[in-house]
């Protein structure tokens, strides 16, 4: 047996298991450490602060060393307050409700939209896709702001709604408080939310629907199904993945929205994002804001962790 071919030090070094192990460590640790510092650490800090009391400019320290004795100042009043005060509970519920409504309307408008896009002439589809993506790339702040102009007194949409007497229906549904006043109402908030998140619903739906094999519908027709039946029994179930993806992309960010409720919503539109902001900026009560944040995190993360675990298990079974 002869000796291994003469290979340079460079070669040997690269082949050495320790080098490979090091480069692997570097790739993993850079983002890992970054996330630990800027994602995990802040969480623990707001957890800590939520137990503190607000001082003059900042929060009081949790632990003090007085005369050689360590004293802890854990304040659970914020959490007590959250649990006891109706406001937070109602706000969270309202946020969920608003997000659910938005998701529903996005689905209602967006599904047929994506469906007809996918069934349009093949040469037309790239242009349609671009037209849907264009608002997505334009600043959402500006687009939401634009609705102010449409809904304020004398605005285009306001005038149309009054002229067609549709505002009475909205009044009955308690979406607006006064007839003719559409700005800063639940109605304005909903329109703004649906408007902003519609592309997020359309795009995943379009992706799923355009990939559908049309021959399945032909097979169904061949077996005696009408187009209506074909739609509900075949197209819709096959697009389930798109429906779920689109709904998640709309529902979850909607819960924590701040800008749209602030610009378009009114005093009755209680959203958790606004409450947090106000606690922090207006009331200057950091520990309070922190405790609200911790509660929201737990309420979002827990169902999400369960959802993820379910997903992971499902894919394990499939394999």
């Amino acid at each position: 047996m002869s000796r291994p071919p003469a290979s340079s030090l460079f070669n040997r070094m690269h082949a050495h298991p320790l080098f490979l192990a090091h480069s692997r460590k570097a790739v993993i640790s850079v983002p890992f450490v970054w996330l630990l510092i800027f994602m995990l650490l802040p969480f623990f800090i707001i957890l800590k602060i939520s137990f503190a009391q607000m001082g003059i400019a900042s929060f009081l320290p949790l632990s003090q060393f007085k005369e050689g004795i360590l004293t802890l100042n854990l304040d659970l009043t914020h959490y007590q307050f959250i649990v006891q005060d109706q406001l937070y509970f109602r706000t969270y519920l309202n946020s969920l409700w608003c997000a659910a409504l938005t998701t529903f309307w996005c689905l209602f408008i967006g599904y047929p939209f994506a469906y007809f896009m996918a069934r349009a002439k093949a040469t037309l589809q790239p242009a349609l896709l671009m037209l849907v993506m264009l608002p997505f790339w334009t600043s959402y702040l500006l687009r939401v702001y634009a609705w102010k102009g449409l809904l304020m007194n004398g605005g285009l949409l306001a005038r149309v709604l009054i002229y067609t007497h549709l505002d009475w229906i909205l009044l009955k549904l308690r979406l607006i408080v006064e007839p003719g006043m559409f700005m800063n109402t639940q109605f304005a908030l909903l329109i703004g939310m649906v408007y902003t998140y519609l592309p997020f619903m359309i795009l995943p739906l379009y992706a799923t629907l355009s990939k559908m094999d049309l021959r399945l519908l032909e097979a169904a027709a061949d077996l005696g199904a009408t187009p209506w039946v074909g739609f509900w029994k075949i197209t819709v179930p096959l697009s389930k993945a798109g429906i779920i993806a689109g709904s998640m992309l709309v529902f979850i960010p909607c819960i924590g929205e701040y800008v749209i409720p602030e610009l378009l919503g009114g005093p009755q539109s209680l959203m958790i994002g606004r409450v947090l902001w106000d606690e922090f900026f207006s009331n200057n009560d950091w520990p309070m804001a922190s405790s609200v944040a911790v509660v929201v995190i737990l309420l979002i993360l827990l169902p999400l962790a369960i959802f993820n675990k379910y997903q992971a298990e499902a894919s394990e079974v499939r394999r």
Partner: protein
Amino acid sequence: MSLRALLYRVLEKGFGKTWLGAGFVFLYLPIVVLVFYSFNASPLPVVWGGVSLRWYRQLVQDRDLLSGVWLSLQIALYAATGSVVLGALAAFTLVKYKRFWGRTLFTGMVNAPLVMPEVIIGLSLLLMLVSMQRVFGQRGMFTIWLGHVLLGMSYATVVIQARLQDLNPELEQAAADLGARPIQVFFLVTLPLILNALVSAFLLSFTLSLDDVVLAAFLNGPGSTTLPLVIFSRARLGMRPDINAAASVIIAVVTVMVVGGSYFVFRAERRRAAEIAAAQRA
């Protein structure tokens, strides 16, 4: 085709066109109205005072707005770069290394910014920066950049990860088989093939950073007011013609870029498909 089937087709097409038309009107109406009113000579949006460019002329002298633009562009550029670098590293980690200590935690942390409300991300990051003021210094451009990279990284990871998973693993193996060392494989084969995803991730993070209101509000300091913050504070007060003009300019720029970009991508894809078809026939 039977008469009934024909009727269905006509109805479906008619309904489809109406729905699509109405949908697009809904999507574009506010934008069109905005641009329309930016040419309104009268400062009151509900009174039409004739066509005028005065608001555009005013834009050029709007110091706050222009410095906001400059700052936002800088932050967006740096944030997008940071997001793509970190996102690529995270994507690689998730795709190539199936087993390492803390993988579940890592995945959770990477995906968390996608589901957490921005208000919470902003709040927690800010409180941490305040607690560790000695380390991170005063709040300003750097701290905004930190928040934007944190958010952008999550989106970048999703985009890059998807592309990496689609990549044929035999390509990298072939490169190694032909004598390329791991670093060479990355630069010569992997990187060119994921370039599209890297560009998409860059554009996505860039736009995210440019548009962001909430994180910037929490993390900014004196003298670092971004464009969205300028617009937001003015927008809260009501409908203002100067914002309309600024908005129109921004919309025009974005439209040109999106339309131009889409067109180029579309043409390149069409050419490629034609080449593949021609090769199959040969």
